[in-house]
């Protein structure tokens, strides 16, 4: 036998010792990932409801935006600045976060469901022997417990998960699923420097290669998304979708059906297997509304639905539904928008 490890599972801790909501703030090359601001928004709301404080935890290799995290809602920022956090390696990240949790005992810990969060947070949960829920899209408080709602079975259903007897309750949260909190320069908070100490690491990042796809970034940051689905009939249908998007200063999205048909690249896909978005305006054209698509867009502020089938599920989430042929309604909309612009 190569490795002999003694793993002991222990009794659940007394949950009342655990206080406070924590948000793990992910950074790459010193810039904070946008999901961190969404987590601060969600974390603030949960902390208020639990009548407790909100702390941000930031590991970085630069002296950076710890102050900003207070403006975004944190009461405390635990900041560890060390060269070891220049690259992402699971072991030092999980070990230091574990150490801090053991010391300060928060009741809730949130992290982004990004490749980084979903890789190292499970190690933290395993070491703490507590529960972890992946890729949550809704978080609520019920009798002091965190209700963690997540898609499962490929987005076909949602599950509500509880971690009643163990603390902390840890969740990774889907980027784009939560709204940012209110930014205010008037907020007061405390920055607590943390020393890295002696962190072991058996992996090493040899090189980092960036391959950012522009429209992917655009999709999650856009104020307006015009999305097309199978109802367009063919790839050419996306021409009018693009025209409408351009006119509204937005970007093009698509349902999985349209992507599977090969009409448009995968990086435009909205939904459980694509991107979760919450723009100000989402216009769904010829999309029937499979559950896995709805998960990805239903928190948009205004949802305009154009579909010729009055029974299409997508009308259930519509703020403004129009039953009609996409090829009649969209060109008419384009024409009238152009006229209105001239006026």
């Amino acid at each position: 036998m190569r490795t002999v490890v003694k793993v002991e599972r222990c009794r659940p801790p007394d949950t009342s010792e655990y206080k406070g909501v924590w948000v793990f703030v992910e950074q790459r090359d010193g810039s904070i990932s946008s999901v961190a601001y969404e987590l601060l928004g969600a974390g603030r709301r949960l902390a208020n409801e639990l009548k407790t404080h909100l702390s941000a935890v930031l590991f970085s290799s630069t002296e950076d935006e710890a102050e900003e995290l207070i403006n975004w809602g944190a009461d405390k920022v635990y900041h560890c600045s060390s060269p070891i956090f220049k690259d992402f390696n699971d072991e030092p990240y999980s070990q230091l976060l574990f150490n801090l949790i053991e010391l300060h005992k928060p009741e809730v810990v949130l992290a982004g469901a990004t490749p980084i969060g979903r890789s190292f947070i499970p190690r933290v949960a395993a070491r703490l022997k507590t529960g972890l829920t992946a890729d949550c899209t809704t978080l609520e408080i019920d009798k002091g417990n965190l209700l963690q709602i997540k898609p499962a079975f490929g987005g076909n259903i949602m599950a509500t998960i509880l971690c009643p007897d163990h603390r902390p309750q840890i969740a990774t949260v889907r980027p784009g699923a939560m709204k940012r909190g209110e930014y205010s320069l008037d907020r007061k908070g405390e920055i607590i420097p943390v020393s890295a100490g002696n962190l072991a690491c058996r992996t090493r990042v040899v090189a980092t290669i960036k391959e950012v796809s522009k429209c992917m970034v655009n999709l999650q940051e856009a104020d307006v998304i015009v999305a097309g689905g199978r109802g367009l009939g063919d790839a050419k249908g996306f021409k009018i979708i693009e025209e409408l998007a351009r006119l509204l200063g937005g970007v093009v999205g698509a349902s999985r059906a349209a992507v599977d048909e090969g009409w448009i690249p995968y990086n435009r896909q909205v939904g459980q297997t694509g991107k979760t978005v919450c723009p100000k305006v989402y216009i769904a054209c010829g999309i029937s509304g499979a559950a896995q698509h709805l998960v990805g867009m239903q928190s948009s502020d205004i949802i305009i639905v154009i579909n010729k089938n009055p029974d299409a599920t997508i009308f259930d989430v519509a703020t403004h539904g129009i039953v009609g042929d996409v090829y009649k309604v969209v060109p008419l909309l384009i024409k009238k928008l152009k006229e209105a612009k001239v006026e």
Partner: protein
Amino acid sequence: MNIIVCIKQVPNTEEIKIDTETNTLMREGVSSIINPYDLHSIEAALQIREKMGGTVIAITMGPPQAEDALRAAISMGVDDVRLISDRAFAGADTLSTSYTLCKAIEKLRYDIIFCGKQAIDGDTAQVGPEVAEFLNIPHIAYVKKIDNITTESIKVHRLLDDGYDVVESSLPVLLTVVRELNLPRLPSLKGKMTAKKAVVVKMDLNAIGAEEKDVGLKGSPTKVKDIFSIKAKTDRRMLQGNIEEQVDILVQELFSQ
């Protein structure tokens, strides 16, 4: 090189329908398959064995019928299998599953452990990293390419949101893999014959040396409170009038934004 591949038998989620009356999954008639990501794990393990020699063992935790998944792995070419199965393991969440797998893996020899990125039923992607933590070995998640392996170390490409990292690790290591890694082979006729005759070794609670309180539902800190289908939101606000009038309202609405 001793390689362990952790696989899971899952319902084919593409066939799953929801009973909207009861908000439950209609599992009847839904076929069971090897979690698709795990096929890429098996392929990666076989390729390393072909290059460096050694043994590939596929393991799975599940009910007795999960044996089918192990036989399918044998038909692809793995050398041996273990079925980690006991009534006590039922209802396990990710922590409890990872702990159970860790206890079973401790009884085996390994240099590399492969897991699929995630299973398509739970979609958690947590079991791989949690197993690595319980075993106290490093892991690399979202592996899309294996660059180089020696008897001491491995170099891989790890997929991230904004590109990829080239990461080196000492062995033993656990890797979770994405679909870009390779194209899984189909079972050969000879493989199918071997699979038919193979003896599937079972490991129960006693064999892995765990206690009942630490496994299955009892060892699971998380509980599923309920499941529901997504059609909860029913705004369904429809515009009235003829198309022309409806479009006029839209134009106004879009301009007020």
